[in-house]
Every structure is written in C-alpha cells, then in structure tokens.
C-alpha cells in the first residue's frame, strides 16, 4: 500500500509541488520570523556579554519594576559612594559610570538619529578593564571639557576623525561644540546595538548630563580570590537603602530579556501574517485533496474491491499529505532564511538598524517549520481523506462519477445561524463605539457562516457575475464551468476571500484613521504650534527647547508634555505629565469632573472610562509605582474624556514627573501665540529661535495632520505587502483547481475541439472560468472586508478613530484587480487545455 502511494506521488510530481507551494510560503514566514528573532537576540547577547566583561558586580539604584526605555534606567547615586565601595574587602577596582541623552549632529548640522536605538552620552571610565568592550580605535581618551570620543560607526558613517569639531545637543542648554579626540569601538562592533555614543571626560559628562556629583552606576571588579556572588553580597552590606548590587551575569540576563520582550511585538506581528497565509494555504490543500480524492474515486473503489481496508485508504491519502507537508517544510525553511534576511533589510529600510551577526538557525526553528508544514497539511487533508474511505467498492464498477451532492441541510442551518449572529454582531459594532467584542465575534461568526454557505451562494453569484459575458460562447462555457462544482469553486474562492477581506478591512481602518487625524487634532488641540522630535525613534525633545521658546515675546503660552512608564495595578502603562497651569490654553482634554489645576504633586487625572472601570471618583486614592522611586499614593483630582491627543488615560503634573523621573525630555511642546500673532509668523519666529535644534520638527495643525496621514500610509504599505502574499497564495489555489479541472475534462475539451472550437476559444473559456472564480472571491471579500473594516473602525474608537470613513474606490480597485488576476492564474491551465489531443479524447477508451 505504502509503495503504491509513493509510486502515485512520483507520477504526480508537478501537482505535488504546486500544492506544496500554498503552504510553503506560510512555513517560510514562520521560520523566517524565528530566524530573525534568534539572530537579533544572539547579536544583542554577544554585545551585552562583551560590555559586562571585566566587571563582576554593578551597584545601582533599585528599580521598582523594569522599565523598557534605556534612558529611564535608574535614579542617579551620589559620587561619594564609590569610595565606600572601594573599601569593601575583595574589591580590586571600582569606578562610577553614567549615561544620558546626547544627540550628535553631522557636519551639515543634521541630527544623527539611529532607528530604534538611543543617542547616548557617557563619562569615560579610566580603568580599561571596567570599561568593558569599550576600546579606543584611534586618538586618545577625553581629558578636557571640550573633548569627545565618538563611536566608530558614527565616525565612519559621518566621516568624523580626531581633530574634527562636532556639535552635540543635550537635554538642556542647546548645542555645544566639541573637538573629536578619539574613535572608540566595542570589541569587534563599531557601536552599541545601533546606539550612538559620545564619551566625555567624567566631570564634564556629569555636568552635561545634569548629574553633577552623581553617577548612574558603579562598576566593580573583584580580586581573583572572590566569586562575583560573594563580592555582590559583601558590597550589598555597605549600601544605603534604595541601592542594590547585581552581578554582571544578572545584568546581561536582564538585558537579554528586555531585548526579547521588545522583539516579541515584531514576532507577534510577523507570526500573525504567517498565520493568515497558512490559513489561506490550508484551504487550498483541503480543496486540492478533495479534488484528488474525487478524481481517484474509482481507483480507491478498486483498491477496496480487491481487499484494501478503510484504514489503508486513509493512510494512503494522509501519507500523500505528509509528503506534501515535508516538501513544503524543507523548501519553506530554505526560503525562510531568505525571508529573515529580507525582513532585516525591511526593518533597516524603515530605520530600525539591527546589530549584525550570522543568521541563527536553531533546532527549534527547524522543528517549528516541520511541525507547521506537516501539521497544517495533515489537518487540511483530513476531511478529504476521510471522504475517500467512504467510497464503496461497488463504485469501481459504476460507469459514471458520483453525482454532485447538494449541501447538507445541517450545513445550511448552522451556516445561516452563524451568519445571522455575525451580521447582528457587526451591526451592533457599527452602530456604537468601542464594541470590540461584538466586532471580533461578529467578524468570526460572519466569516465562518459565509464559509459554510459559500457552496450554496456560488451558483447565483456566478450567474449574476457572469451575466455580462454569457453572450459570448466562451464566456458562457466559462460561466457554466465555474458553477459546475459549487463546492470546488467555493473553497477555491474562500482562499481569496480571506486575503481580500483583510486587505479591504485594513484599508477601511486606515482610511478611518486618516479621516480621524484631522478631527482629533481640531477638537483636542488649541495650540498654534506643536513641536516634536523629527524622528519617530527619538526619545523626545530636549527641555532646552521649551525654555528657548519662552524667551519669545510673541509666544503667549508654552506648555510641555512628557511621558514616562509607571505601574498601575498589574499593568505597566505610560503616564503623561502636563503643566497644570497652562495646559488648558493649548489643549482641550474634555474635563468631565474636577480640574487640571488641582494636580499639584500628588494628584492624578484619569480618563472617564478608566475611572469608571476601576470604580474611582474624585478624591479616591490610587497607588502608582514609579521605577526609580517606588510606590506613591496619588489622589484622583478629576476625570477627562479626550485621550486622543495625549494618548494615555493617566495624567500627572510636571512636578510629579520631575520628582519620579530623572530625564528631562519632552514628548511634545505646545505653543499658543499671543493674540494678533499669526500662526505663520510664530512658526517663523520659532524656527529662527530653534535653529540650534535641528532635531525638532515645528508643525502647525496642518503639517501635523499631513505627517500623521503619511505615517499611516507608510504603515498601510507594509501591511499591504504582507497581505499580498495571502492573495498570491489564493491565486495559486485558482491555478491548482483549474489545472485539476482541465485534467478532469480532457474528453469534453477534445469533443469541443472536434466540433470546431479553436485553441484560442478553449483558452478564453478557461480564462473566463478563472476570472469568475476569482470574482466570486473578490466580491465576497470586498463585502466582508468593508463590513469588518467599518466594525473595527468603530470598535477602535478609543484609539482615536472618531470618524469612520469607508472608502469605495480603493477597495473596489483591489477587488477588480484580484478578479482580473484570475487571467494570470489561468495562463498555464488554459494552455494545457488548448493542447488536449482531440483524437485521444474522442476515441472511446
């Protein structure tokens, strides 16, 4: 039996390969994502291992929870502590170190902002061993206040050499000029995980980074006879409260974990796309195996008749599925390595530079690729395989193929019920804001319902869609053939429905976001100018920007806004900080109760939704945990409704922020001009005043709307590329189905050719059939996508989607293109159909 299966497989190599392709791309995505994640993690691990080399124990402020931002690393500690640590028995060397915000400018005055990595300034550690991987490549260490050592990557990319002058921006005080005296690398690497690093003489660094008399941490090396663990506990004894000693191994471990959690977002997104293509692929596998089983009905019946058991038939079909899955896994894994390289390039293209190392192919990735490829194929082939076992031996003796069964009644009832529930859920989601559950369940129920009813809907749909072409004889034949096997057409079209529905839904949501951007800004902002960092990767705008603006007589109100992470309840969430005195003049938060003015240093303003969910009212206490300072009991002083401008439901005062965070970077600075000063005028004045801050983007409301719409479009473009993959897989499914149908209709095609059908007409009929199958998928996908998109746009109202905009032109264009892509899918099957040997087809077997 097994030999028979393998022989059959060998005879159908091309079919096997075509089928495998549909699942191959999904496997490639899964393995590519895993390879990329492992590679990035390995690169960061290598880097951190190098950095902590030579240091046994690190002393630093305890953190109430681990925040993700590098700049919010820890509270500074007094410099005097270094001496205390040095006196601990077993300490060979101890030195303070610090890092902070320092943005270098290139020679033309533009900011050097890496994607996804911080711009760091640091004090130079004199002990070479404690400096970790930090090594001077050329020049010398910084010794005087005006001197700086630049990381090798920055030096190389922006051609800085010892002797050059460089301008650097700090949190306060604007640009300063330095002389480059040295270039440093980190072991083999040219920079620190993509971050830029400017290293100053220690005292200078303390002044520049607002840490006079302080360090961020103390690095300690022990004597040879002390283990790091022993050293750690000895040092811990002499430390005052609020400080801790940690071994280097633990530090590296923490860093590795935080990189992993930062990467998990990307992993999830890419695996999500992989899931979509696997879902689409599984429909194609299911369909292909259904057709194969139907075509091989007599063969299976013959096997049954000569004594094969049901289990053997099942085994035979499933073996074929496993082989298809294995082929897909092997090829998918190979392609996955390419995908990983491509994704790394894609991230690089959007500014996320990742440290480079060889692509990491772990056993887990190989296992995952095989598990996904084989399992998905097996599961998809299960139903067709079971159907194959139901063929009675007597079928071998019957002349005609089994008649097409009508859809089972239970299928109609359940499908109808699901569709009704789904439509109800979607209607509810569309008619009210923030019905996320209704939108999600409605989408799921509608989708499954449509899936179950699709075979019934195919005939009428094909009849209507094909009406315009039915006058031509080839169009008419194409229309009849598309409706010939409704199940086959339905499952082929379903693959396209999934891809297209997603594309259309995303388009609707994106369009709603774009339409909302303007409304949100008009409603929530009263400012004439909004200043932000000109790169989405920058940590913020230096505090010096707001200070400088306040010196402009025409600027009536300058109000800054900051962001920091805090733990409230179990969740780590951003908290916004505002100036209670001025915020009302530049922004409309939609205060529902209380007043912003009452924030003080122990007040917190909550969004009305969160207050309601947590059962808090004005006056209620709320415990907020800050990383550097631990738990604080704040009091709810009011509630507000419009979170769209500040993007978080928690607001504290700048005073509270300064007491609990050490950095001074603004997420945005809002400016309201004095009465009588035009927006254009204040914008010009601000631009002149902030000439030394090239890293700040000065926008009026219109600029900001443009920028935000552009970034939505950019994101949309990336999502399109990913989803396009699903559409391409779906079209491969059309190719597969048509190829099998053509094979099945050899005699009919021969007859048509015999009575006078030209090759061109044969090709045309197959093409129309393909277009109609694709059109069924496109129409269903379009309708579902529009409904899903509208439902989710309303459901995501809390994310700032205040206007639901359902575009028609773009989704319609997508649908038309998808339908026309049927022409491309038909090329090979049509050519094959036209080549049918008439004589062999018409001569009775």
């Amino acid at each position, binding site marked *: 039996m097994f030999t028979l299966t393998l022989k059959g497989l060998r005879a159908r190599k091309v079919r096997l390969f075509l089928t495998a392709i549909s699942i191959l791309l999904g496997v490639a995505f899964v393995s590519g994502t895993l390879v990329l994640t492992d590679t990035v993690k390995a690169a960061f691990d290598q880097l951190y291992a190098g950095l902590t080399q030579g240091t046994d124990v690190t002393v630093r402020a305890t953190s109430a929870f681990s925040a993700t931002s590098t700049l919010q690393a820890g509270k500074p500690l007094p410099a005097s502590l270094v001496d205390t640590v040095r006196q601990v028995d077993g300490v060979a060397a101890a030195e303070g170190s610090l890092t902070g915000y320092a943005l270098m400018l290139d020679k033309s005055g533009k900011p050097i902002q890496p994607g996804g990595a911080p711009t760091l300034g640091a004090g130079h550690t004199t002990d070479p061993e404690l400096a970790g991987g930090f090594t001077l490549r050329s020049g010398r260490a910084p010794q005087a206040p005006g001197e700086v050592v630049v990381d090798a990557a920055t030096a190389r990319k922006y051609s800085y050499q010892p002797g050059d002058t460089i301008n650097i921006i700090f949190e306060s005080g604007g640009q300063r000029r330095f002389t480059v005296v040295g270039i440093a690398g980190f072991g083999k690497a040219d920079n620190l995980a993509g971050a830029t690093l400017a290293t100053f003489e220690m005292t200078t660094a303390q002044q520049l980074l607002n840490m006079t008399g302080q360090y961020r941490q103390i690095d300690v090396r022990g004597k040879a006879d002390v283990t790091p663990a022993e050293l750690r506990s000895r040092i811990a004894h002499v430390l005052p409260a609020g400080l801790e000693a940690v071994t280097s191994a633990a530090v590296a471990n923490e860093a590795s974990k935080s990189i992993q959690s930062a990467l998990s977002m990307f992993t999830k997104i890419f695996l999500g796309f992989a899931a979509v293509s696997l879902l689409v692929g599984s429909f194609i596998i299911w369909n292909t195996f259904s057709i194969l089983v139907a075509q091989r009905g007599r063969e299976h019946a013959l096997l049954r008749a000569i004594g094969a058991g049901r289990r053997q038939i099942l085994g035979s079909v499933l073996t074929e599925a496993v082989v298809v899955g294995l082929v897909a896994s092997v090829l998918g894994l190979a392609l996955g390595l390419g995908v990983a390289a491509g994704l790394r390039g894609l991230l690089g293209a959007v500014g996320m530079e990742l440290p480079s190392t060889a692509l990491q192919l772990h056993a887990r990735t190989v296992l995952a690729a095989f598990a996904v490829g084989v399992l998905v194929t097996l599961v998809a082939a299960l139903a067709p395989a079971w159907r194959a076992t139901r063929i009675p031996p007597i079928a071998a003796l019957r002349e005609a193929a089994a008649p097409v069964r009508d859809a089972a009644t239970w299928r109609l009832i359940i499908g109808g019920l699901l569709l009704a529930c789904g439509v109800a859920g979607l209607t509810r989601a569309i008619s009210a804001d923030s019905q996320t559950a209704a939108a999600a369940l409605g989408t799921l129920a509608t989708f499954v319902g449509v899936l179950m009813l699709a075979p019934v809907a195919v005939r009428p749909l094909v009849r209507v869609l094909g009406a315009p072409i039915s006058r031509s004889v080839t169009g008419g*034949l194409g229309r009849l053939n598309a409706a*010939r096997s409704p199940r086959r057409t339905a499952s082929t079209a379903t693959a396209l429905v999934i891809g297209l529905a997603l594309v259309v839904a995303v388009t609707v949501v994106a369009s709603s976001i774009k339409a909302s951007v303007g409304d949100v800004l008009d409603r929530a902002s009263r400012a004439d100018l909004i200043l932000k960092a000109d790169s989405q990767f920058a940590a913020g705008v230096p505090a010096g920007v707001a200070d400088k603006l306040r010196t402009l007589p025409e600027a009536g109100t300058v109000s800054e806004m900051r962001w920091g992470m805090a733990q409230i309840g179990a969740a780590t969430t951003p908290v916004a900080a505002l100036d209670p005195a001025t915020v009302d003049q530049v922004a409309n938060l939609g205060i529902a109760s209380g007043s912003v003015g009452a924030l003080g240093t122990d007040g917190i303003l909550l969004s009305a939704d969160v207050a309601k969910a947590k059962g808090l009212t004005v006056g209620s206490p709320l415990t907020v945990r800050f990383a550097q300072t631990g738990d604080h009991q704040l009091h709810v002083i009011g509630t507000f409704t419009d979170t769209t401008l500040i993007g978080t439901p928690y607001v504290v005062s700048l005073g509270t922020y300064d007491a609990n965070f050490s950095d001074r970077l603004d997420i945005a600075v809002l400016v309201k001009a004095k009465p009588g000063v035009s927006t254009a005028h204040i914008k010009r004045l601000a631009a002149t005043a902030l000439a030394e801050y090239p890293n700040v983007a000065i926008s009026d409301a219109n600029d900001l709307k443009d920028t935000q719409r552009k970034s939505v479009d950019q994101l949309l473009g990336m999502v399109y590329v990913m989803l396009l993959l699903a559409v391409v897989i779906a079209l491969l499914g059309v190719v597969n189905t048509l190829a099998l149908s053509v094979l099945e209709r050899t005699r009919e095609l021969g007859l*048509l050719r*015999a*009575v*006078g059908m030209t*090759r061109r007409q044969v090709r045309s009929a197959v093409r129309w059939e393909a277009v109609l199958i694709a059109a069924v998928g496109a129409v269903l996908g379009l309708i579902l996508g529009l409904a899903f998109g509208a439902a989710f746009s309303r459901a995501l109202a809390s994310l700032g989607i205040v206007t639901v905009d359902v575009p028609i032109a773009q989704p319609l264009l997508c649908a038309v293109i998808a339908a026309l892509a049927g022409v491309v899918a038909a090329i090979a099957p049509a050519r094959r159909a036209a080549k049918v040997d008439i004589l062999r087809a*018409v*001569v009775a077997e």
Partner: protein
Amino acid sequence: MSVLQSPSEARTVAARVVGATKLYGRGDSAVRALDDVSFEFPAGAFTAIMGPSGSGKSTLLHCLAGLDTLTSGQVCIGDTDVAKLSDGELTLLRRNRLGFIFQTYNLVPTLTAQENIVLPLRLGGRNADPEWLAQVVAAVGLADRLGHRPAELSGGQQQRVAAARALVTRPEIVFADEPTGALDSRSSGELLRFLRHAVDEYGQTIVMVTHDPVAASYADRVLFLRDGRVVSQMTEPTADRILDAMKGLGE
C-alpha cells in the same frame, strides 16, 4: 481556396483519399494501419466503412476528418487538401464543413440539448436558421427534450442530439464513428433511419464506420477494409450479404 467555401452544386465527389498510408511507430516495429488506400466518397450518398478490428477503418475516418494525419498520401474534403491546413484552419474546417457523431461522449454535459445542437454555429458566432433547426429537431424527434441536459437523456436520445448537431451546420460530410456502438437495437434503428432520411431528403453525404452489418445495411455503399487495404466494395447492401462478405474477410 477558402475553408469557408460552400459546397458546389455540381460536385459529385465529397471527399477523396489518394495513396493514403498511415504508419504507427518506426522501423521494424512499425504498424501499417493504412496501406495505400485510394477511394472517392460520392456526394449525397451514405457510405459505410467496415472491417475487422485493426483493419484501419477508424484510422481512415480520423484522417478523412482531419483529426489525424497521414504518413503519406492525400486527403481532400471537396477541393481542400486537408494536409495543407494549419490547426486553426482544420478547426474551422471541422466547425463549418464537417459534422461528427462519435460512439460515446458526444455532448458537453453542462449544455442543454438545444445548446449542444447549435454549439458549432455558436462557436463561429453564427445563429441557427430557425426553420432548418426546427426541421432537424423534428426529424430526430427531440422537440420536447431540448431543455434537458445530457445526463437527463437516454443513450439513444443523446446520440440523436449528436446527429442533430452534426446536421445543423449543413456540412459537406457527416462523419459517424460507430454511432450505434453503445445503443440497443431499437435506439440504433431510430438513429440509422434518421441518417438515411438525411441522405434521402437533404442530399447529405455521410461516412460511417461500423462493425454492425445491420447498421451498414442502411448505407448506399459499403467499403471493406482489411490490414489497411480496401479489399472490396458493395452497393445496395443488405445485412445478410454484408455478413457473408465479412465472413469472407475472416471475421
């Protein structure tokens, strides 16, 4: 000369083979399916081709109809040399000037009887002459079955639909390849009477391959083949005479 050329009134030869030879395979193992066959098929007559299995009768029909090509020799439909036609021209020849009835699988399962009948016309973008169509449909006795699909028709009805399709374009020649091979004797009789009727009433030329002496007895002339060669002819045949002749051929 156009393949669309209408049959000339005065023509007396509908099709002609000269020195037709067909080899299958090569060298020593080559099988000579047709061996220097020359024959003229008279217009307006019903010719049957008979012979034992492997005598080359089907090969002769296929080569005549442009479905297969000769190794050497000439086939003409009217004045058209079939060997000189391209695939496209052959297709138009079959569509416009020839009619076909095969043993089985004559009809497109997705089309109704009526649609199957007018298919060759529709493929050429033409409409049926309603009077002629009605006449043909009435003659095959299918007026009340036109909306049915092949699966809803009996084997005899299916073959009569095929016959109607073959006649609807008023072809120069109708080729029938064992048209009664899968039918019972009653259905066979109906179909053969219709073919005879077409020859007598409309002057239709028909060339039919069969191994059934009764079927062949409906023809005006019977051509006997053996081992790829024409061995004898018979005019005004009867089933008994044919049976005797076949016995003489060793079947």
